[in-house]
Protein backbone atom coordinates (compact mmCIF):
# COMPACT_ATOMS: atom_id res chain seq x y z
CA UNK A 1 0.00 0.00 0.00
CA UNK A 2 2.56 2.49 -1.07
CA UNK A 3 0.53 5.11 -2.84
CA UNK A 4 1.27 8.77 -2.84
CA UNK A 5 -1.70 9.38 -0.54
CA UNK A 6 -0.59 7.11 2.26
CA UNK A 7 2.85 8.58 2.57
CA UNK A 8 2.08 11.52 4.80
CA UNK A 9 4.49 14.41 5.18
CA UNK A 10 7.75 14.29 3.27
CA UNK A 11 10.95 12.97 4.77
CA UNK A 12 12.48 16.41 5.12
CA UNK A 13 9.52 17.70 7.10
CA UNK A 14 9.66 14.64 9.32
CA UNK A 15 13.35 15.19 9.96
CA UNK A 16 12.83 18.84 10.82
CA UNK A 17 10.01 17.88 13.18
CA UNK A 18 12.10 15.18 14.83
CA UNK A 19 15.10 17.47 15.25
CA UNK A 20 13.02 20.33 16.65
CA UNK A 21 11.25 17.93 19.02
CA UNK A 22 14.53 16.38 20.15
CA UNK A 23 16.13 19.72 20.85
CA UNK A 24 13.03 20.85 22.76
CA UNK A 25 13.10 17.61 24.76
CA UNK A 26 16.78 18.09 25.58
CA UNK A 27 16.21 21.71 26.57
CA UNK A 28 13.13 21.05 28.69
CA UNK A 29 14.61 17.98 30.34
CA UNK A 30 18.07 19.33 31.05
CA UNK A 31 17.63 23.05 31.59
CA UNK A 32 14.10 23.25 32.96
CA UNK A 33 13.89 19.78 34.52
CA UNK A 34 10.34 19.56 33.18
CA UNK A 35 9.90 15.79 32.99
CA UNK A 36 10.26 14.88 36.64
CA UNK A 37 6.78 13.41 36.96
CA UNK A 38 6.58 12.14 33.37
CA UNK A 39 9.80 10.23 33.82
CA UNK A 40 8.22 8.08 36.53
CA UNK A 41 5.58 6.92 34.06
CA UNK A 42 8.09 6.48 31.26
CA UNK A 43 10.36 4.45 33.51
CA UNK A 44 7.49 2.26 34.64
CA UNK A 45 6.48 1.80 31.01
CA UNK A 46 9.99 0.71 30.09
CA UNK A 47 10.73 -1.41 33.16
CA UNK A 48 9.48 -4.69 31.57
CA UNK A 49 12.24 -4.34 28.99
CA UNK A 50 14.76 -3.87 31.77
CA UNK A 51 13.52 -6.96 33.56
CA UNK A 52 13.81 -8.96 30.34
CA UNK A 53 17.31 -7.63 29.75
CA UNK A 54 18.26 -8.59 33.28
CA UNK A 55 16.97 -12.16 32.89
CA UNK A 56 20.07 -13.86 31.37
CA UNK A 57 22.35 -12.53 34.09
CA UNK A 58 19.85 -13.54 36.74
CA UNK A 59 19.59 -17.09 35.39
CA UNK A 60 23.36 -17.33 35.16
CA UNK A 61 24.00 -16.20 38.72
CA UNK A 62 21.18 -18.41 39.96
CA UNK A 63 22.53 -21.52 38.30
CA UNK A 64 25.99 -20.60 39.55
CA UNK A 65 24.57 -20.48 43.06
CA UNK A 66 22.98 -23.88 42.62
CA UNK A 67 26.21 -25.38 41.34
CA UNK A 68 28.44 -24.20 44.18
CA UNK A 69 30.01 -27.12 45.97
CA UNK A 70 29.45 -28.01 49.60
CA UNK A 71 33.02 -27.11 50.55
CA UNK A 72 32.61 -23.65 49.15
CA UNK A 73 29.38 -23.18 51.06
CA UNK A 74 30.97 -24.44 54.25
CA UNK A 75 33.94 -22.15 53.80
CA UNK A 76 31.65 -19.22 53.17
CA UNK A 77 29.56 -20.13 56.18
CA UNK A 78 32.67 -20.27 58.33
CA UNK A 79 33.80 -16.89 57.07
CA UNK A 80 30.41 -15.32 57.69
CA UNK A 81 30.23 -16.81 61.18
CA UNK A 82 33.62 -15.35 62.04
CA UNK A 83 32.52 -12.01 60.66
CA UNK A 84 29.30 -12.19 62.67
CA UNK A 85 31.24 -12.81 65.86
CA UNK A 86 33.54 -9.85 65.23
CA UNK A 87 30.60 -7.63 64.32
CA UNK A 88 28.50 -8.54 67.33
CA UNK A 89 31.46 -7.88 69.60
CA UNK A 90 31.73 -4.43 68.05
CA UNK A 91 27.99 -3.97 68.33
CA UNK A 92 28.07 -4.59 72.08
CA UNK A 93 30.46 -1.71 72.45
CA UNK A 94 28.48 0.34 69.98
CA UNK A 95 25.26 0.06 71.98
CA UNK A 96 26.96 1.36 75.10
CA UNK A 97 28.76 4.10 73.23
CA UNK A 98 25.70 5.30 71.36
CA UNK A 99 23.72 5.48 74.61
CA UNK A 100 26.54 7.40 76.18
CA UNK A 101 26.69 9.68 73.17
CA UNK A 102 22.96 10.36 73.42
CA UNK A 103 23.30 11.19 77.10
CA UNK A 104 26.21 13.53 76.44
CA UNK A 105 24.30 15.21 73.66
CA UNK A 106 21.36 15.67 75.97
CA UNK A 107 23.67 17.23 78.55
CA UNK A 108 24.93 19.60 75.88
CA UNK A 109 21.32 20.17 74.80
CA UNK A 110 22.23 19.22 71.25
CA UNK A 111 19.55 17.37 69.29
CA UNK A 112 19.89 13.61 69.62
CA UNK A 113 20.50 11.92 66.30
CA UNK A 114 17.66 9.63 65.38
CA UNK A 115 18.07 6.32 63.67
CA UNK A 116 16.50 6.23 60.26
CA UNK A 117 14.62 3.56 58.35
CA UNK A 118 16.73 1.38 56.08
CA UNK A 119 15.98 -1.03 53.28
CA UNK A 120 18.20 -3.42 51.36
CA UNK A 121 17.96 -3.16 47.59
CA UNK A 122 19.54 -5.32 44.96
CA UNK A 123 21.33 -4.12 41.90
CA UNK A 124 19.65 -4.69 38.54
CA UNK A 125 22.88 -4.03 36.68
CA UNK A 126 21.14 -2.87 33.58
CA UNK A 127 22.57 0.01 31.67
CA UNK A 128 26.05 1.14 30.76
CA UNK A 129 25.93 4.58 29.27
CA UNK A 130 29.62 5.37 28.76
CA UNK A 131 29.11 9.04 29.59
CA UNK A 132 27.61 8.67 33.03
CA UNK A 133 27.84 6.43 36.04
CA UNK A 134 24.44 5.14 37.06
CA UNK A 135 22.97 1.90 38.28
CA UNK A 136 19.40 0.64 38.49
CA UNK A 137 18.10 -0.91 41.69
CA UNK A 138 15.07 -3.10 42.25
CA UNK A 139 13.17 -0.81 44.62
CA UNK A 140 10.86 1.95 43.48
CA UNK A 141 8.08 4.32 44.42
CA UNK A 142 6.02 1.37 45.75
CA UNK A 143 8.68 0.78 48.40
CA UNK A 144 8.77 4.46 49.29
CA UNK A 145 11.91 5.41 47.41
CA UNK A 146 12.11 9.15 46.84
CA UNK A 147 14.17 11.51 44.72
CA UNK A 148 17.74 12.19 45.91
CA UNK A 149 17.52 9.51 48.56
CA UNK A 150 20.97 8.47 49.84
CA UNK A 151 22.24 5.02 48.87
CA UNK A 152 25.06 3.17 50.65
CA UNK A 153 26.82 -0.15 50.46
CA UNK A 154 28.71 -1.99 53.20
CA UNK A 155 31.81 0.21 52.78
CA UNK A 156 30.47 3.69 52.24
CA UNK A 157 28.30 6.13 50.32
CA UNK A 158 27.35 4.98 46.82
CA UNK A 159 25.20 7.78 45.47
CA UNK A 160 21.72 9.19 45.39
CA UNK A 161 18.48 8.25 43.69
CA UNK A 162 18.06 10.31 40.52
CA UNK A 163 14.93 8.79 38.98
CA UNK A 164 12.15 6.86 40.61
CA UNK A 165 10.06 4.31 38.72
CA UNK A 166 7.22 2.37 40.27
CA UNK A 167 9.21 -0.83 40.87
CA UNK A 168 12.78 0.23 40.17
CA UNK A 169 14.82 3.37 40.36
CA UNK A 170 18.04 4.79 39.02
CA UNK A 171 20.92 5.74 41.26
CA UNK A 172 23.49 8.37 40.32
CA UNK A 173 26.87 7.24 41.65
CA UNK A 174 29.16 9.67 43.44
CA UNK A 175 31.71 9.08 40.68
CA UNK A 176 29.50 10.63 37.99
CA UNK A 177 30.81 13.88 36.50
CA UNK A 178 27.62 15.71 37.41
CA UNK A 179 27.64 14.61 41.03
CA UNK A 180 29.13 16.44 44.00
CA UNK A 181 28.98 15.45 47.66
CA UNK A 182 29.86 17.60 50.68
CA UNK A 183 32.41 15.81 52.87
CA UNK A 184 34.68 16.52 55.77
CA UNK A 185 37.94 15.07 56.87
CA UNK A 186 37.66 12.61 59.74
CA UNK A 187 41.04 13.69 61.12
CA UNK A 188 40.53 17.42 61.43
CA UNK A 189 36.94 18.22 60.32
CA UNK A 190 37.92 20.39 57.35
CA UNK A 191 35.06 20.62 54.86
CA UNK A 192 35.44 19.80 51.16
CA UNK A 193 33.29 19.10 48.15
CA UNK A 194 34.07 15.87 46.32
CA UNK A 195 33.00 15.79 42.69
CA UNK A 196 32.97 12.77 40.45
CA UNK A 197 35.53 12.32 37.71
CA UNK A 198 33.58 9.96 35.46
CA UNK A 199 35.91 7.10 36.40
CA UNK A 200 34.63 4.74 39.08
CA UNK A 201 37.73 4.77 41.28
CA UNK A 202 38.40 8.51 41.41
CA UNK A 203 36.85 11.63 42.86
CA UNK A 204 38.32 15.12 42.98
CA UNK A 205 38.19 17.61 45.81
CA UNK A 206 37.21 21.04 44.54
CA UNK A 207 38.87 24.35 45.44
CA UNK A 208 41.37 23.08 48.00
CA UNK A 209 43.89 25.82 48.91
CA UNK A 210 47.54 24.79 49.04
CA UNK A 211 47.79 25.53 52.73
CA UNK A 212 45.03 23.17 53.82
CA UNK A 213 46.08 20.32 56.07
CA UNK A 214 45.20 17.28 54.03
CA UNK A 215 47.32 14.17 53.66
CA UNK A 216 47.30 10.97 51.72
CA UNK A 217 45.34 8.37 53.63
CA UNK A 218 42.87 10.78 55.23
CA UNK A 219 39.35 9.42 55.43
CA UNK A 220 36.54 11.67 54.27
CA UNK A 221 33.06 11.26 55.70
CA UNK A 222 29.83 12.86 54.59
CA UNK A 223 29.34 16.18 56.36
CA UNK A 224 25.56 16.25 56.25
CA UNK A 225 25.53 19.71 54.70
CA UNK A 226 23.14 20.04 51.82
CA UNK A 227 20.62 17.73 53.49
CA UNK A 228 20.92 14.98 50.90
CA UNK A 229 23.37 12.67 52.61
CA UNK A 230 23.17 12.02 56.34
CA UNK A 231 26.17 12.96 58.41
CA UNK A 232 29.00 10.65 59.25
CA UNK A 233 29.06 7.95 56.59
CA UNK A 234 32.47 7.18 55.07
CA UNK A 235 32.82 8.44 51.51
CA UNK A 236 36.40 8.28 50.30
CA UNK A 237 40.07 8.05 51.14
CA UNK A 238 42.67 10.54 49.92
CA UNK A 239 45.07 8.84 47.50
CA UNK A 240 47.05 11.72 46.09
CA UNK A 241 47.72 15.36 46.95
CA UNK A 242 49.51 17.44 44.33
CA UNK A 243 50.52 20.88 45.56
CA UNK A 244 51.61 22.53 42.34
CA UNK A 245 52.12 26.18 43.26
CA UNK A 246 51.62 27.33 39.68
CA UNK A 247 47.98 26.30 39.93
CA UNK A 248 45.43 28.20 41.99
CA UNK A 249 44.33 25.16 43.97
CA UNK A 250 45.87 21.93 45.13
CA UNK A 251 44.87 18.89 43.14
CA UNK A 252 43.49 16.25 45.50
CA UNK A 253 42.48 12.85 44.19
CA UNK A 254 40.44 10.59 46.44
CA UNK A 255 39.18 7.05 46.03
CA UNK A 256 35.60 6.13 46.92
CA UNK A 257 35.39 3.62 49.75
CA UNK A 258 32.30 1.94 48.33
CA UNK A 259 33.09 -0.71 45.75
CA UNK A 260 31.36 1.14 42.93
CA UNK A 261 32.45 -1.37 40.31
CA UNK A 262 31.17 -4.43 42.15
CA UNK A 263 27.94 -3.32 43.76
CA UNK A 264 25.36 -5.99 44.50
CA UNK A 265 23.45 -5.23 47.67
CA UNK A 266 22.72 -1.63 48.46
CA UNK A 267 21.22 0.10 51.43
CA UNK A 268 18.56 2.77 51.05
CA UNK A 269 18.27 5.27 53.88
CA UNK A 270 15.22 7.22 54.93
CA UNK A 271 16.15 10.38 56.70
CA UNK A 272 14.05 11.72 59.53
CA UNK A 273 13.72 15.36 58.70
CA UNK A 274 11.41 16.92 61.28
CA UNK A 275 11.79 20.59 60.42
CA UNK A 276 12.78 20.71 56.77
CA UNK A 277 10.50 20.94 53.81
CA UNK A 278 10.56 18.81 50.69
CA UNK A 279 12.16 21.35 48.38
CA UNK A 280 15.52 21.22 50.15
CA UNK A 281 17.27 18.64 47.91
CA UNK A 282 16.38 20.61 44.77
CA UNK A 283 18.12 23.67 46.09
CA UNK A 284 21.17 21.58 46.75
CA UNK A 285 21.07 20.27 43.20
CA UNK A 286 21.01 23.78 41.81
CA UNK A 287 24.00 24.76 43.90
CA UNK A 288 25.89 21.74 42.65
CA UNK A 289 25.11 22.59 39.06
CA UNK A 290 26.18 26.16 39.46
CA UNK A 291 29.43 25.04 40.91
CA UNK A 292 30.04 22.73 38.01
CA UNK A 293 29.23 25.54 35.61
CA UNK A 294 31.68 27.90 37.24
CA UNK A 295 34.34 25.22 37.03
CA UNK A 296 33.93 24.67 33.33
Amino acid sequence: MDTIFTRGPSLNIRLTLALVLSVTLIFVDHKLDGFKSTRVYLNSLMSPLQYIANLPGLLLSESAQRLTSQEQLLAENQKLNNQLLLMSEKLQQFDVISKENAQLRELLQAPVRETSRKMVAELMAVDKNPYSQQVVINKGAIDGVYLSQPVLDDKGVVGQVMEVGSTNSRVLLIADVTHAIPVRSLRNDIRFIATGSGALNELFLEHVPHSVDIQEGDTLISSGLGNVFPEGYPVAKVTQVVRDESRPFARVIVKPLANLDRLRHLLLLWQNKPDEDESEPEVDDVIDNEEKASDA
Partner: protein
Amino acid sequence: MRKRNLVIWLSILVALVLQIVPLPSQVDVYRPDWVLVVLAYWSMALPHRVNVGVAFLTGVAMDVLVGTTLGIHSLGLSLSVYILAANYQRLRNYSVWQQAIIIGLMSSLYHLMTFWVQHLLTDIYFQVDYLWPVLTSMVLWPWVFWLLRRTRRQFSIS
Protein backbone atom coordinates in the same frame (compact mmCIF):
# COMPACT_ATOMS: atom_id res chain seq x y z
CA MET B 1 -1.20 -5.73 8.10
CA ARG B 2 -1.27 -5.53 11.94
CA LYS B 3 0.83 -8.64 12.24
CA ARG B 4 3.48 -7.26 9.90
CA ASN B 5 3.78 -4.05 11.86
CA LEU B 6 4.05 -6.20 14.94
CA VAL B 7 7.09 -7.97 13.52
CA ILE B 8 8.85 -4.67 12.88
CA TRP B 9 8.14 -3.38 16.39
CA LEU B 10 9.11 -6.72 17.90
CA SER B 11 12.50 -6.61 16.18
CA ILE B 12 13.06 -3.08 17.48
CA LEU B 13 12.08 -4.18 21.00
CA VAL B 14 14.51 -7.09 20.82
CA ALA B 15 17.21 -4.65 19.69
CA LEU B 16 16.41 -2.36 22.64
CA VAL B 17 16.73 -5.28 25.06
CA LEU B 18 20.03 -6.34 23.50
CA GLN B 19 21.23 -2.78 23.82
CA ILE B 20 20.76 -2.79 27.59
CA VAL B 21 21.57 -6.40 28.50
CA PRO B 22 24.17 -6.22 31.26
CA LEU B 23 27.59 -7.39 30.11
CA PRO B 24 30.94 -7.62 31.87
CA SER B 25 32.70 -4.29 31.56
CA GLN B 26 35.54 -5.71 29.44
CA VAL B 27 33.07 -6.78 26.74
CA ASP B 28 30.69 -3.89 27.25
CA VAL B 29 32.90 -1.42 25.39
CA TYR B 30 32.43 -3.45 22.21
CA ARG B 31 28.65 -3.66 22.38
CA PRO B 32 27.34 -2.96 18.86
CA ASP B 33 24.55 -0.47 18.18
CA TRP B 34 21.79 -3.04 17.93
CA VAL B 35 19.04 -0.45 17.69
CA LEU B 36 20.74 1.57 14.98
CA VAL B 37 21.52 -1.51 12.89
CA VAL B 38 17.96 -2.84 13.08
CA LEU B 39 16.48 0.58 12.31
CA ALA B 40 18.94 0.91 9.42
CA TYR B 41 17.74 -2.34 7.90
CA TRP B 42 14.07 -1.42 8.12
CA SER B 43 14.61 2.10 6.86
CA MET B 44 16.47 0.79 3.83
CA ALA B 45 14.04 -2.05 3.13
CA LEU B 46 10.78 -0.21 3.90
CA PRO B 47 11.58 3.49 3.91
CA HIS B 48 7.88 4.40 3.76
CA ARG B 49 7.07 2.43 6.88
CA VAL B 50 10.09 2.91 9.06
CA ASN B 51 11.74 6.27 8.88
CA VAL B 52 12.36 9.32 11.00
CA GLY B 53 9.20 8.99 13.12
CA VAL B 54 9.94 5.45 14.26
CA ALA B 55 13.57 6.38 14.85
CA PHE B 56 12.51 9.30 17.01
CA LEU B 57 10.20 7.17 19.16
CA THR B 58 12.82 4.45 19.52
CA GLY B 59 15.34 7.11 20.49
CA VAL B 60 13.09 8.41 23.27
CA ALA B 61 12.61 4.84 24.52
CA MET B 62 16.36 4.42 24.48
CA ASP B 63 16.86 7.66 26.42
CA VAL B 64 14.51 6.41 29.11
CA LEU B 65 16.19 2.99 29.24
CA VAL B 66 19.74 4.29 29.33
CA GLY B 67 18.90 7.21 31.59
CA THR B 68 20.25 10.03 29.47
CA THR B 69 18.61 13.40 29.05
CA LEU B 70 15.49 12.88 26.94
CA GLY B 71 16.07 13.68 23.29
CA ILE B 72 19.74 12.84 22.94
CA HIS B 73 19.42 9.41 21.38
CA SER B 74 16.31 10.43 19.46
CA LEU B 75 18.31 13.24 17.85
CA GLY B 76 21.15 10.95 16.78
CA LEU B 77 18.89 8.13 15.60
CA SER B 78 16.52 10.33 13.60
CA LEU B 79 19.39 12.02 11.81
CA SER B 80 21.13 8.74 10.90
CA VAL B 81 17.89 7.10 9.81
CA TYR B 82 16.97 10.17 7.75
CA ILE B 83 20.20 9.86 5.77
CA LEU B 84 19.57 6.17 5.16
CA ALA B 85 15.90 6.57 4.26
CA ALA B 86 16.61 9.47 1.91
CA ASN B 87 19.18 7.44 -0.04
CA TYR B 88 17.55 4.02 0.15
CA GLN B 89 17.46 3.45 -3.60
CA ARG B 90 21.19 3.95 -3.96
CA LEU B 91 22.04 2.03 -0.80
CA ARG B 92 20.00 -1.01 -1.82
CA ASN B 93 22.21 -1.49 -4.85
CA TYR B 94 25.37 -1.65 -2.81
CA SER B 95 26.84 -4.97 -1.79
CA VAL B 96 26.49 -5.98 1.83
CA TRP B 97 30.11 -5.02 2.53
CA GLN B 98 29.69 -1.56 1.09
CA GLN B 99 26.53 -1.22 3.15
CA ALA B 100 28.53 -2.24 6.20
CA ILE B 101 30.85 0.71 5.60
CA ILE B 102 27.83 3.03 5.34
CA ILE B 103 26.52 1.57 8.62
CA GLY B 104 29.90 2.28 10.17
CA LEU B 105 29.68 5.89 9.00
CA MET B 106 26.15 6.24 10.38
CA SER B 107 27.20 4.65 13.64
CA SER B 108 30.10 7.04 14.06
CA LEU B 109 27.82 9.97 13.23
CA TYR B 110 25.36 8.72 15.84
CA HIS B 111 28.02 8.31 18.50
CA LEU B 112 29.63 11.66 17.79
CA MET B 113 26.21 13.35 17.86
CA THR B 114 25.34 11.87 21.25
CA PHE B 115 28.81 12.71 22.52
CA TRP B 116 28.67 16.31 21.32
CA VAL B 117 25.24 16.97 22.81
CA GLN B 118 26.27 15.46 26.13
CA HIS B 119 29.53 17.36 25.99
CA LEU B 120 27.52 20.57 25.70
CA LEU B 121 25.29 19.59 28.61
CA THR B 122 27.88 18.15 31.00
CA ASP B 123 31.65 18.29 30.95
CA ILE B 124 32.54 14.83 29.70
CA TYR B 125 35.72 14.05 27.82
CA PHE B 126 36.10 12.08 24.65
CA GLN B 127 37.68 8.66 24.80
CA VAL B 128 38.52 6.58 21.76
CA ASP B 129 36.78 3.68 23.49
CA TYR B 130 33.46 5.33 22.69
CA LEU B 131 33.97 4.49 19.01
CA TRP B 132 34.46 0.72 19.36
CA PRO B 133 30.75 0.11 18.63
CA VAL B 134 31.33 1.50 15.13
CA LEU B 135 33.54 -1.45 14.26
CA THR B 136 31.36 -4.06 15.91
CA SER B 137 28.25 -2.64 14.24
CA MET B 138 29.97 -2.98 10.87
CA VAL B 139 30.77 -6.61 11.64
CA LEU B 140 27.21 -7.18 12.85
CA TRP B 141 25.51 -5.68 9.80
CA PRO B 142 25.75 -8.63 7.34
CA TRP B 143 24.26 -11.00 9.93
CA VAL B 144 21.43 -8.70 10.89
CA PHE B 145 20.79 -7.99 7.21
CA TRP B 146 20.53 -11.69 6.44
CA LEU B 147 18.37 -12.46 9.47
CA LEU B 148 15.95 -9.57 9.00
CA ARG B 149 15.62 -10.19 5.28
CA ARG B 150 14.63 -13.77 6.00
CA THR B 151 12.13 -12.58 8.59
CA ARG B 152 10.76 -9.99 6.20
CA ARG B 153 10.27 -12.57 3.45
CA GLN B 154 8.85 -15.10 5.89
CA PHE B 155 6.13 -12.70 6.99
CA SER B 156 6.02 -11.07 3.52
CA ILE B 157 6.20 -7.58 4.95
CA SER B 158 6.18 -4.86 2.37
